[in-house]
């Protein structure tokens, strides 16, 4: 069965034919009531994909269907079904929260009592009922972020696109936003969520898509993605030795329990099914090879490891 959102071979090139290819052949579906996170570093193309899907940018190839409506051929019908929470705080600072919501509600065709009901409802969701009549410019960053989300929900959409909604806010506000997303999803809202925080993707998502350099390099449930790295833990070492990192990695790869060892960006990276069990023999072997360990990091099997495995670099790089 096809999803409520279908993205087929999506491409975006700025200033064609020679411009940057920002999105290359991206395809995925989102099922009704699902949270799909697009995870990737800054500049990976997540915002471009959401911008195309929400009708802000035009695509240069492929197709996006929202509940069967093409965002290219029937943008007005498609946009009615979507709520968008952009990565920047897109609000009018010199008017109140209520006035902001009223304006955006009207832009979605809401009027009269229905509009007032929705304003009160989303103010409640955002926890801003007591600040409704204050100017947005007096709000903290977290409150603005919450209002930004409330605007995206004003017309009671079936689908909401959230583009990095927790960037630059305090932990409490972040927690509140994540709880809100979960609660809305429980009520049946389909969420497409982009983030470069793997913890958010891990906590929220039914499925995760990993984006890098404009390409969707993997998509699936977290279990499915972990299988891509065989549920291996990752050990990163910084060593001081007469030997090169490649030679040291070669020597350490002989240890029992090491699946793979290689040198990367001045570090030695080992993949193993159980990092804790390997530690004693690893330190002893390094010592025998004349290498002193200056720094050691253990990373259990997670999306970071998956990203590292698939792209050869860490998500935070």
């Amino acid at each position, binding site marked *: 069965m096809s999803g409520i959102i279908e993205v087929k071979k999506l491409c975006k090139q*700025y*200033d064609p034919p020679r411009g940057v290819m920002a999105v290359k052949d991206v395809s995925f579906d989102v099922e009704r009531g699902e949270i799909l996170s697009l995870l990737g570093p800054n500049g990976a193309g997540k915002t471009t994909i959401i*911008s195309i899907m*929400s*009708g*802000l*940018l*035009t695509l240069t190839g492929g197709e996006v269907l929202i509940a069967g409506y093409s965002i290219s051929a029937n*943008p*007005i*019908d498609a*946009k*009615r079904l*979507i709520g*968008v929470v*952009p990565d*920047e*705080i*897109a*609000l*009018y600072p*010199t*008017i109140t929260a209520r006035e902001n919501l009223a*304006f*955006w509600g*009207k*832009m*979605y*065709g809401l*009027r009269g009592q229905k509009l007032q009901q929705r304003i009160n409802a989303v103010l409640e969701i955002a926890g801003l009922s007591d600040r409704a009549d204050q100017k947005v410019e007096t709000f903290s960053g977290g409150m603005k972020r919450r209002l930004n989300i409330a*605007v995206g929900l004003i017309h009671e959409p079936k689908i909401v696109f959230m583009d990095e909604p927790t960037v630059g806010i305090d932990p409490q506000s972040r927690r509140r936003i994540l709880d809100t997303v979960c609660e809305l999803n429980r009520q049946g809202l389909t969420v497409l969520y982009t983030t470069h925080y793997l913890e958010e993707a891990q906590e929220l998502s039914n499925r995760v898509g990993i984006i890098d350099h404009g390409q969707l390099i993997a998509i699936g449930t977290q279990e499915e993605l972990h299988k891509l790295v065989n549920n291996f833990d990752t050990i990163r070492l910084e060593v001081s030795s007469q030997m090169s990192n490649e030679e040291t990695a070669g020597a350490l790869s002989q240890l029992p329990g090491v699946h793979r060892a290689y040198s990367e960006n001045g570090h030695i990276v080992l993949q193993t099914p159980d990092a804790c069990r390997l530690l004693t023999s690893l330190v002893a072997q390094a010592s025998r090879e004349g290498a002193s360990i200056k720094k050691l990091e253990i990373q259990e099997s997670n999306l970071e490891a998956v990203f590292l495995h698939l792209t050869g670099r860490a998500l935070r790089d």
Partner: protein
Amino acid sequence: MKKIWTIAWKDTIFRLRDRNAMLLALLAPLVIAGIMGLALSGDGVESHLISATIINQDEGPLGRIFEGLSADVNAGVEFKSSPLKDFARAREAVERGETQALVYLPRNFSAALQSAVDKSVEAPIIQIYCGAEAATKADIIRGVCDRSARHLRALAISKQVTASRLRISSEEDWRASRLDAAFAQEISSRQVLKEAARVELTTSPIGDVKIRRNPFAFFAPSLGIFFLMLCIFEAPRSILVEKDEGTLGRLIRTPTKPSHFLLGKLGGSCLTGILQFAMLIVASRFIFGLTWGDSLSGLALMVAAVVAAYTSLGAVIAAFSKNVFQAGAIGGGITMISAGLGGNFFAADNLPGWLEALSRMTINRWALEGFSKLVVRDLGVSDVVLNAVVLFSMAAVLFVSAFWKFQRRIAG
């Protein structure tokens, strides 16, 4: 339509709530009206009269009446009769600074004006020649001449009607009582308030002659248009501000057609512009006693046309500018060039041929000409229809250009 109004109203409210915008919207018209009032209708009007010499070559009676009608110092022009008969020699007197302008009535002035009641006969030609000192006041002199010529035409019609009706009623005197009604009907049907005589204007080039402060009517529309241009150019830049603040992206993501969005943004500018110009007119009229002509409908039509044209021009500037600062720089440049070419600083009649043609491509020229017809020459709404049509056409072309560019930028 509701969405267009929602965006337009939001922008209007924003501007009214913004302290700086409020100052510009409310205070500036009052200040400008104050400057107009003090500079143009205050003390010393007498000492700033334009001196003009009438060379009356008319062989009929109307030329002399014209001299009498024109000698109205309230209009800011002091007419004197000249014994000179030769127009070329009289021009030399202007160049010598003995008088500032010449008004030449041709030999057939009376005959042509009386015959001109018959539409097949061409209107008489009054020639005006302005020296450097009066070059910027040419419209004022023309306005006075227009007014006098219209009165004379009304007089000519009245005479004809009277003669005609008296013949009819010579057997029955009681019919004479109907003459007043007949006058009104005839004068109305013949549209005597239309331009009665063709006024040709020539001016000598402005050299380094210092131009003195002089009376009112030229400056009122000129300042008003210049002010309106500055105000309205500020507004479409809000599109770029919305782009920077992210709300433009959010607006585009709502189920709103791009044309509705742009119309809404421009609608907000129009509302503000009309409000500001209305304030300028009301303040200058009631506080400082400046008149803006007798045609309220003409004034409303011109304000709407000018506001539409400038708003669309502002949208083009916003559409083709990369950011707010660039839009400000381009807008400032266009304001100054348009004002210079269009006649806000000096009468565009002074420009050489090719520059005069270029001047016709500016909003300012058509706007100033339209307002001058209403304010200086006391003409009516039908006389500014051409100006309004040209301005609305400019607005349409500019809007389409801005829309085309915006769509390309949005798609990018």
